[in-house]
């Protein structure tokens, strides 16, 4: 068995979607709660958000994705009030990953995005005894 590297501030983390199923929490509800007012007007209920065409911000190539992820990554996540200094650290980390389309991020990258705390403090929080919002170390699929 390969040795497990000790996580550090460059270790990547992501939202484990299965964690929500296991803990009985609804990820789509949580994502919907993070939408801005404009997007919530478009999708009043989580069930209203189906699959949409996502336009790549640089190439304009189109892919089919969940509307909630598309809104969070391409619109709400770019609004200045999506993460504010008043946002609790665990929520800010969760929102930063939502805005990043759940592409894995390191504590250092998270610190740059949420502009609060230190990479070491974020790492300590993520490695605490309780998993917060399903954020766990990312294990690349081989």
């Amino acid at each position, binding site marked *: 068995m390969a040795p497990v590297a000790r996580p550090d501030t460059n270790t990547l983390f992501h939202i484990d979607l299965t964690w929500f199923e296991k803990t009985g929490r609804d990820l789509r509800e949580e994502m919907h709660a993070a939408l801005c007012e404009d997007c919530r007007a*478009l999708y009043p209920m989580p069930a209203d958000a189906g699959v949409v*065409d996502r*336009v790549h911000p640089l*190439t*304009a*190539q*189109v*892919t089919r994705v969940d509307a909630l992820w*598309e*809104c969070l990554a391409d619109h709400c996540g770019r609004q200045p009030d999506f993460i504010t200094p008043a946002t609790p650290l665990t929520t800010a980390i969760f929102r930063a990953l939502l805005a990043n389309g759940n592409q894995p991020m390191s504590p250092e990258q998270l610190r740059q995005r949420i502009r609060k705390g230190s990479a070491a403090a974020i790492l300590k929080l993520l490695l605490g005894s309780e998993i917060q919002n399903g954020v766990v170390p990312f294990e690349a699929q081989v």
Partner: protein
Amino acid sequence: MPSSDFWSTLGTTDADVERAYAFVLERGAPVSSRELALHLIGCRVREEEERLAEIAARSAPVYQPKDNYAVGQHLILSAFDNRVGEVKQIRAGANPRLGEFQVMAVQLENESKPREFVMACAAPHPLNEERAPLTALALSPEEAIAQYGEPVRLRLMPRLSMDKEFVHLDDGWFLRGLLPQIHAGYLNLAEAAIEQANDALRTADLLKILELPGTIKKTAALFALNLALAGDARFENVGPTDDTRWFLARLELPEARERPEALQVAPARLVALSAELETIAAELFDEADLNGDANASAGAPREEITLVLTYPHRRAGTLPLTPLVRGLLPAFARPRLRFAFVDATTQEKFAGYAVTEGHYIAGLTHWFNARRLSPGAFITLKRGANPLTLTVDYQPQRERSLWVRVARGVNGHLTFSQEKRPLAHKYDEEMLIVIGDPIGLEVAAQAAREQRSLAALLEQIFPELAKLSGAGRVHAKTLYSAVNLIRRAGPRAVLGALTESRAFNSVGGGYFVLNDEARR
């Protein structure tokens, strides 16, 4: 313009080798790697220009998400290295956040499946910014050469080296199939010609003697002959950079073929010296201080340099090839450069060699002997009128008997005495040591090889020299000259050992005394 990915692989593909092959074939003469690299870049720039001209002729627009397109239309996708795609299908877009828009399936060249792109979309997107039409290259050929020429050349050389069709000598590349045959008879004739001339001959001069068939292109004949001579151990290229001159290995001086035993030196540990000792070390111009680094900066080139002869060089008939001395000769990158020493007084010429391995110039044994030079004599080297000559001179004076240091080996130990000896040359007062007994010195040198440290050797030699001076002082240069009678060591190694040893105290002016403890 091609992406940076393209430039990073240019020079490594089979197509590049094909192009290089065609280029050399067309030339019918060897070409340099730089010429080949420039040719490949030129080809690629031309291809790109043709591609852009073709795109311009097709009137293909640059894709922008805000615009409308029709099935069958061609587009240039700037975000995909300006590749061209054809619109295959159009459907309605679905995203209430973006409003009304359409999605088109575009088949890009060299791809198996179409990709989807947004069109007729009012939402802002960076690709909607106005762009200049793609009718000109983003990079001029000159800019492409300046930016990518050297990397392409460096990648191309190993690739061509692996290809059996190519042969190369130094930086000349040619095709094996175009090589004129140089048979053994030609090489025997070349050997005889060099032996008769008793000097290094240029390839072109040898070619005239060999009289190869007139149908052969001269550049191809030169290359083939150089290649054949380089592959035959009888011959050695002893010319400067870019001036190939062939000589016979068996006619070269033995001391130029192999570093003389007297010049063998162990790598020295570098020790920080005081400013005074650093000045002394720098003035001594000893190749043993190079520690194998022949690329040390020579500073501003000089027309002449005066050296003080040391015993190892006196025995070997050599002088140090320090960067300053190297600056008096043409640049060379091979093991040996053959040149001519010119005696400044008699204008007599004799062969000399600058030797890369060991950094020394050889060929002075007879000249030293004829002038009965002792270690400590001043020797001046001067740039010759002809680049391949080096004028050598000493400072003669009327012969008279003088009180000088004389070195002997007694029972395996180095000893010194003050004796009256005839001298006919000027010398460095601190470094002059007349050899009283070469055989005894050799025995002492063998014993010194077993001496572990230079500091211990210095402690042994110092009292012998100190007894010749009333105040018990010995100059650092005298110690350096004396140590070199029995063990080859550079000035920095000797002065560093002096500095580090607790047995000696510096009393200024480059002089040292034994401290009280060592004296006991």
